[in-house]
């Protein structure tokens, strides 16, 4: 069906915005999967915000495109290069992402995620847990530097590619 050029341009802009939102949802899901899962609070606290446009809703894992803010598709708005910023809203996000030292306590509950480290705590980074001859007193549910590895090791790029593929496929 013939479409006016103006509408065609708008369709392309919509596809791009949709792809960006799908990519953000993919990234949030992969961050939730890669990161620590003890009570589930951290993995359910990823939020996509669009500065200057609006904040994404506080969703939970698994995230969908509905958890990302709708981006404007007018020429003027697109020219301002709207961005999606993914953040974790927990107070302890920096410690959970192994970016800062912290003080870790056993919450007295069993972790929901798989335990990848078990032993005795020897340092103040989240995954500073080493082998112990005594009963293990500390556990971690994500490997050390999981966040940096996801960002730098190619994981985020894969999520982005998948999200864009899904976004363009859905819009067509």
């Amino acid at each position, binding site marked *: 069906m013939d479409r006016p050029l103006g509408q065609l341009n708008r369709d392309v802009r919509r596809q791009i915005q949709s792809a960006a939102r799908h990519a953000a949802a993919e990234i949030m899901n992969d961050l939730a999967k890669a990161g620590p899962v003890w009570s589930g609070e951290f993995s359910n606290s990823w939020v996509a915000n669009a500065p200057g446009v609006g904040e994404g809703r506080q969703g939970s894992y698994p995230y969908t495109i509905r958890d990302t803010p709708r981006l404007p598709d007018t020429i003027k708005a697109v020219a301002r290069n709207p961005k999606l910023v993914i953040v974790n809203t927990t107070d302890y996000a*920096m410690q959970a992402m*192994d*970016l*800062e*030292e*912290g*003080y870790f306590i056993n919450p007295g509950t069993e972790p929901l995620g798989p335990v990848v480290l078990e032993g005795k705590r*020897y*340092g*103040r*980074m989240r995954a*500073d847990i*080493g*082998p112990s001859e005594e009963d293990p007193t500390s556990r971690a549910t994500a*490997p*050390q*530097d*999981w966040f*940096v*590895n*996801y*960002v*730098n*090791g*190619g*994981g985020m790029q*894969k999520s982005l590619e998948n999200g864009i593929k899904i976004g363009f496929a859905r819009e067509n």
Partner: protein
Amino acid sequence: MNYQAIRAAVENPLLSAFGALVPAVPVFFDNITAVPANTTTEYVRVNITFGLTTEPTLTTSLDSVRGALVIRVFSEKGRGPARNQTLIDTATTVIQNLSTTPKGITGVFLRTGAINGPTFSSTEEAPHFVGRIDSSYVATVLP
């Protein structure tokens, strides 16, 4: 894939650089728990992670790895950032040099990405001032 060769290609130059300082600064790598916790002794921790091992590329080589390199420098708290920054500078120089190593016929060909940081942190309970940098890398093991 020779992960150990890749690890050695990153770890050995760092170990040499910090070992050559006067006094030498101890460096701890992955899976070594002998960190002098709760002391003011300065030390360095190097963590190497492996991300994607193979991915479709334009070349026929699938023997390449992408990953991340995280270096944390622990120095005495409450004494200013100068010493920590000096040690971070040593690490930064090593990472930059890794990317200038020419490609040989055998061994590991490694290129690092942008260096993020340094960022500094110091928590109330912890005895150290912590400086941190990280970078991505792509390594290919040559036959």
